[in-house]
């Protein structure tokens, strides 16, 4: 899935596989990958996803450890950016950015404010902001993310209106209920006092 996206972008920017980019695929080693990659990336990835050996890939020879990397970007939906900060960036101190889904945005802000990440692209809003930056610097036109923000705006405004109306209705029902309870309590008190 990742390979097809990278291939599409590589064609758009005229980049050649193995010379400009390489897709190494998934490795199941868990958090030990972060430490192992600093000893040498070929320790973790012996071949790319097509089976081509690491030693035969020209672009892979330029990168041996984290200090050789200008910028590492992690795109993940769960706690992986936090693991990158915790097990890689803190120990080896290299520029790290992330692209995360919506629920993870508030969790990543502490890392952003503490300069443990140089940037964060949060969900479709972050993608729209990135497209805005590209447009501002003359690199592209309005994309899918910017076009989606209208629908997002309408939905969020509608939700705010519904929440406010629901809270008003809840307050009014609670007040009515409280008035009824007070009236019943007063009637009971009159009954008990024999009036």
């Amino acid at each position, binding site marked *: 899935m990742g390979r097809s996206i990278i291939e599409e972008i590589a064609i758009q920017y005229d980049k050649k596989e193995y010379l400009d980019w390489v897709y190494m695929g998934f490795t199941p080693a868990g958090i030990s990958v972060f430490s192992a990659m600093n000893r040498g990336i070929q320790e973790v*990835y*012996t071949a790319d996803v097509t089976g081509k050996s690491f030693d035969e890939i020209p672009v892979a020879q330029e990168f041996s450890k984290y200090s050789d990397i200008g910028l590492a970007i992690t795109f993940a939906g769960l706690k992986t950016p936090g693991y990158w900060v*915790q097990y890689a960036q*803190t120990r080896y101190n290299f520029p790290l950015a992330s692209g995360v889904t919506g629920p993870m945005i508030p969790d990543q802000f502490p890392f952003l404010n*503490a300069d443990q990440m140089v940037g964060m692209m949060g969900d*479709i809003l972050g993608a729209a902001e990135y497209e805005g930056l590209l447009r501002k610097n003359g690199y592209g036109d309005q994309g899918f993310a910017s076009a989606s923000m209208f629908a*997002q705006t309408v939905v*969020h405004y509608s939700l705010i209106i519904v929440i406010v109306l629901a809270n008003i209705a809840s307050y009014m029902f609670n007040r009515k209920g409280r008035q009824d309870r007070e009236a019943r309590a007063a009637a009971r008190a009159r009954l008990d006092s024999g009036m």
Partner: protein
Amino acid sequence: MVVLSWWVIAFFSLCIFSFLYKNNPFYKFAIHVILGLMVGYMFMQQVIIGLSTSFFSPILLELGRSSTDWFDLLIQRFIPFCIASLIFTLLIPGRQWMKNIPLGLVLGYGMGLMMVTSLESNVFIQLRKTLQPATAVISSGSFYRDRWPQWAQFVPMLSLCVVIGCTLLYQFRMRMPEIKTVIYATLLIFIISLSDSLIILIGVMTVLSYFFFSFERDGVVEEVSRVGLTFMMVYFGAVFGSTLMTRMQIFVGQVEFLTSKWIMGTIQAISGG
């Protein structure tokens, strides 16, 4: 074939959407297919690809070299594989104690790795960055004060100096109500100039106090905890809003696929476009 894949995607999408009406066999079928695919994909990824990349491929590569480093293969591949295989002794009656060996190794390694890095990245660095803007009376990377002009960066320091100077003046020389007004006004300016950092500091302290259970919370501690609860509610609201944005975007993407790819694409394919 591409058009067939669009129809399969559209079928399952509409099966899931049918839940909006009520639970029905189409929805249940789609859910079971998704779960089965997920389990199958994870099995492929973790077991087949994992074994291939971590065990079989490195061994075959090493064996293909002119001089095979058998000691390296033994230490890095065969022994870890044997230890990891001990996890399956869970299924052998009477030998289940052996599963604790790989579990212990994994847990010990994870704890050792996590202990130092977690403290540094999640506690020390965060603590330093939280306290730094609140204690620095000259701008130190505050989001709020970064947008002020250069001359305004000294407002916190100047206002603090005026407060201290006027307080001393009021105490030892001139007890005039105007000086008291100046003290209160400059103290307010000082607090406002550091307000973003102070809000963060107050938020961190009050939320931490909410999770402090060493003694009974009553009186001031209870009120402080309530402030922390308010900060947490704001956080949960932000998470909810972000989650809503994600879910909406998934829906927008799916509707865009159904209209542009499935319907229009099928029409174009049929009409020969």
